[in-house]
Each structure stands twice: as structure tokens, then as C-alpha cells.
């Protein structure tokens, strides 16, 4: 008797849940189409330097006492920087501030047509050098921790190697490709045999974001429809929809790439694999990774489909540092730095590592 009642109760509950979810799904569905994307990158900051495509942010410290060495973050040139400051609780920047670090971040804006001639040297030396000098002047310190995510890690590594560690106390890289022969789909689609990068850049100047996005989507073509199906399935869950919109906004919010920078990246990094072979020269200086002698921390994602682990693995063996740490975490390219994987796995380890090297 009581079993029958509990069964009918559970059926009743299920019906109620179904009705509730249907109503909520409709409300969220309408709101998805009529409301603007939720705000991102809300951690308080000042723009302390601006030059064309480059902006330098200084985030407001959140503790009474900070570590001596400031952190300068180099974000990837293909994406908006708010991936590292998505929302409270899921923001690497906020985590670092709350842990007592003084955080600066290099943010990229879409390069203007006249900036098509910006080169790999501009991105990996001039801009980083300029920001580093400002940070050192602002803080009165001699060195920073240079931190780079994805292509930002490549730029930070090239800077540290080619400038012989000038002004860098620690180097932190997240999922940073080094062996560009192992970039999977990117290596194949930009194959020298059929990809005429000169013709493309000469004709269009800056590479449009759609082209870059297409390249990213081709690495896992099933993801877009699957993520839409996930959204539909969880449309009743307001929290899911809001978070989905933030991540989806970021994933589709790509930046154009400066033409010359794209040309050099394809020719020197993809075709010649010069960073891996140690033959890369930037601004007349050798960017051999052996030149990096500062403490280095590198985090890789086990299931990274954009920067395959085979492409990022050689970074640690190739650098000349004695103090080097490598961690391989579960998860993908994005969840490594933001999301539950980052909060629970990467950030605490990173804080422990940085804390010992920042005072």
C-alpha cells in the first residue's frame, strides 16, 4: 500500500518536474533570443596603456598585502582575454588577486587595417617589452612573472628566449604549442603544398576572424551541434543557460589576426617548425628555448583538441631552466584555465608554485 503511494508520489513529482521544466524552458528560450549576452570580464581594473591593438590592464588588488613579483599575463592573439576572467568564482584573474598577487594583463583588440604589418617581432618583443617596462615602473620592481595561455604562451616563451630572460623572474605557460608539426588539423590545413599564405595575406591584409574560427571548428566538427543539443536539453536550467552563453560568446568572439604576423606564424612556426628546432630568430635575436633559464611552470590538458599534447609536451624538455615543473591535467583546452577543472585542479597547484617564487 505504502509502496504504491510512494510510486504514485514519484510519478506525480516527475509530472510536476516535467511541467516546471517545460515552463522554464520556454521562459529561458525566449530570454536566450531577446536578451543580450551576459556580461563577462567584470573584475575591477584600469586600462593603464593603450596602443592600437594592445591594451594593458591593471586589476585592482584584493588583499592588503601582495607578493613582491607582479604577474603579467599575455593572452592569445586569436581570442578575447575575458576567458581568464569569465565570471566571479570562475576567473583565474580573480583567483590570483584573492591569493595576493598583483595582476596585469595584455589584452588584444581587433587589429585595424593599417596594423596589417604588425609582425611576430611586434607581438613577441615590442609589445611585451613595452608592457613589462610599464609594469616594472608602476610597481618599482625589477622582474615579473610572465604568464601565457595558448598562443600567449608562445609569445611569452619567444620573448623570454630571445630577450635572454630580461625582466622575467618566472615563466608560466598553459597549453603552449612548441612542436607545430603536431598541431593536427591546423598542420594539415595550412600545408605548404596547397596553402598559399602570401597570396592570402597580400590580398586581404588582416586575416578575418571567420577564417580562424573555421579552423578551430574543423578540429572537432561535432562539437557545435552537440553543444546546441546540450543547450536545448538543459534549457530549463537558468544557470546552465547563462554559463553556456558566456562560454559560447567567448568561443565565437574571435579576433582578426594581423596579416604579417599570420604570415610569419605560418611560415616560421608551422612550416619551418623553427621554435621547436631552435632556429627561430626574432628581431635578430635567437629565440632558442634553451635560452630560457628562469623557473618555468607548464600545464597541459590531456584531452586538448586544439593544442594537442604532442605539440606542447616538448616545451619543458627544450628549455634551459633547472627549476621546471610540468603538469598534465584532465580536461580540454578551455577547461584547463577556466571551469571546474581549473578551479579544483590547476589553480591550487599554480598558487603553491607561484607563492614560493614571488616573494
Amino acid at each position: 500500500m505504502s509502496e504504491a503511494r510512494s510510486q504514485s508520489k514519484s510519478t506525480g513529482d516527475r509530472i510536476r518536474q516535467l511541467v516546471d521544466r517545460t515552463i522554464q524552458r520556454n521562459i529561458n528560450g525566449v530570454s536566450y533570443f531577446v536578451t543580450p549576452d551576459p556580461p563577462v570580464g567584470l573584475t575591477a581594473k584600469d586600462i593603464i596603456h593603450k596602443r592600437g591593438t594592445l591594451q594593458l590592464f591593471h586589476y585592482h588588488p584584493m588583499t592588503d598585502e601582495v607578493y613582491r613579483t607582479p604577474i603579467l599575463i599575455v593572452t592569445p592573439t586569436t581570442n578575447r582575454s575575458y576567458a581568464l576572467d569569465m565570471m566571479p568564482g570562475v576567473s583565474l584573474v580573480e583567483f590570483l588577486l584573492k591569493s595576493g598577487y598583483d595582476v596585469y594583463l595584455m589584452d588584444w583588440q581587433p587589429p585595424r587595417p593599417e596594423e596589417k604589418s604588425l609582425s611576430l617581432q611586434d607581438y613577441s618583443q615590442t609589445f611585451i617589452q613595452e608592457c613589462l617596462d610599464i609594469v616594472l615602473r608602476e610597481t618599482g620592481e625589477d622582474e615579473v612573472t610572465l604568464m601565457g595561455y595558448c598562443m600567449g604562451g608562445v609569445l611569452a616563451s619567444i620573448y623570454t628566449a630571445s630577450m635572454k630572460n630580461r625582466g622575467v623572474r618566472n615563466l608560466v605557460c598553459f597549453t603552449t604549442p612548441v612542436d607545430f608539426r603536431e598541431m593536427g588539423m591546423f598542420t594539415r590545413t595550412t600545408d605548404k603544398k596547397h596553402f598559399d599564405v602570401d597570396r592570402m595575406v597580400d590580398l586581404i591584409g588582416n586575416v578575418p576572424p571567420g577564417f580562424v574560427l573555421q579552423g578551430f571548428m574543423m578540429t572537432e566538427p561535432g562539437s557545435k551541434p552537440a553543444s546546441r543539443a546540450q543547450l536545448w536539453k538543459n534549457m530549463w536550467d537558468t544557470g546552465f543557460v547563462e554559463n553556456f552563453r558566456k562560454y559560447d560568446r567567448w568561443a565565437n568572439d574571435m579576433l582578426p589576426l594581423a596579416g604579417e604576423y599570420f604570415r610569419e606564424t605560418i611560415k616560421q612556426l608551422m612550416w619551418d617548425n623553427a621554435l621547436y628546432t631552435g632556429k627561430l630568430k626574432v628581431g635578430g635575436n635567437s629565440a632558442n628555448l634553451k635560452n630560457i633559464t628562469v623557473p618555468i611552470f607548464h600545464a597541459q590538458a590531456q584531452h586538448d583538441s586544439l593544442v594537442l599534447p604532442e605539440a606542447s609536451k616538448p616545451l619543458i624538455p627544450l628549455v634551459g631552466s633547472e627549476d621546471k615543473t610540468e603538469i598534465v591535467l584532465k580536461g580540454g583546452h578551455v577547461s584547463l584555465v577556466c571551469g571546474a577543472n581549473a578551479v579544483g585542479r590547476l589553480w591550487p597547484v599554480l598558487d603553491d608554485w607561484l607563492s614560493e617564487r614571488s616573494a
Partner: protein
Amino acid sequence: MRKARCTETANGSAAVAGKKKEDPVQKAIVQLEERVNVLGRAVFGSESFGKVMNTAVSTQAALKKGFSDRMAKNLHFYNMPSQDDIVTLAEQCARIEERMISVETMLRQLLAEKAGPARTGPARTRRPKSETRAKKPDA
């Protein structure tokens, strides 16, 4: 408080969802995604696709270029600046901006030399966690 889970998608997007048991719909979505990925990689990774795609990109770029050249001629006829003219002007502005930045940098350096480093904000005296942990038992 609900625990969060990050479901990552291939193009780099990710979504946070509530932690729950896998249901058949979820399983079907994951399987479909995997199949499409395998199929897509086989197609997109082939040399013939690479050739076709690059031909398409080149053609598109050439068409775009041809169209903007034609547009530039029309604008010239109407005595209006073309995009190239605007870009040239913008390049000149960028050069002026660069000069201003270097002047600004020199001025800052001069001021800094006079006034010494401006250190505002919290004290930069935080100690490593290991030291703080070691001190705690004594306290």
C-alpha cells in the same frame, strides 16, 4: 550549493552544467558528437579537402580584392576617399601615436627619475605560503 561541471566542446566553447547521472539523451549526444568528429576529421584532414578549401579561400580573397578595387575606382570618380586612402591616413595617425608614446615614455622616465618610483596600493611584502604555514604552530 550546486556543484559545477565544465562540459567542453571542440571549438573551445564550454558550458557549466549541474552534476547529474548520465541519461540516454546525454549518451546519444556524446555518441553523435564523437561520430561526427571522426567523420569530420577524416574529411577535413584529407589532402583533397585541403586543396579544395584553399582554392575556395584564395578565390574568395581574390573576389573580395577585385570588388574593393572596383569600389575604389567608383569612389575616386565621385571624388570620395577609398578604403586605401583611409588606411593611409590611419597609418599616418598610428605613426604620430607611436611618436607620442615614445615622448610620453621619455617624460614618464624623466618624472620617475625626479620623484622616485610611485608605489601606491598594498605593501609588496607577502611571504610564501610555506613560511606562513611554518610560522603558524609557534603562534
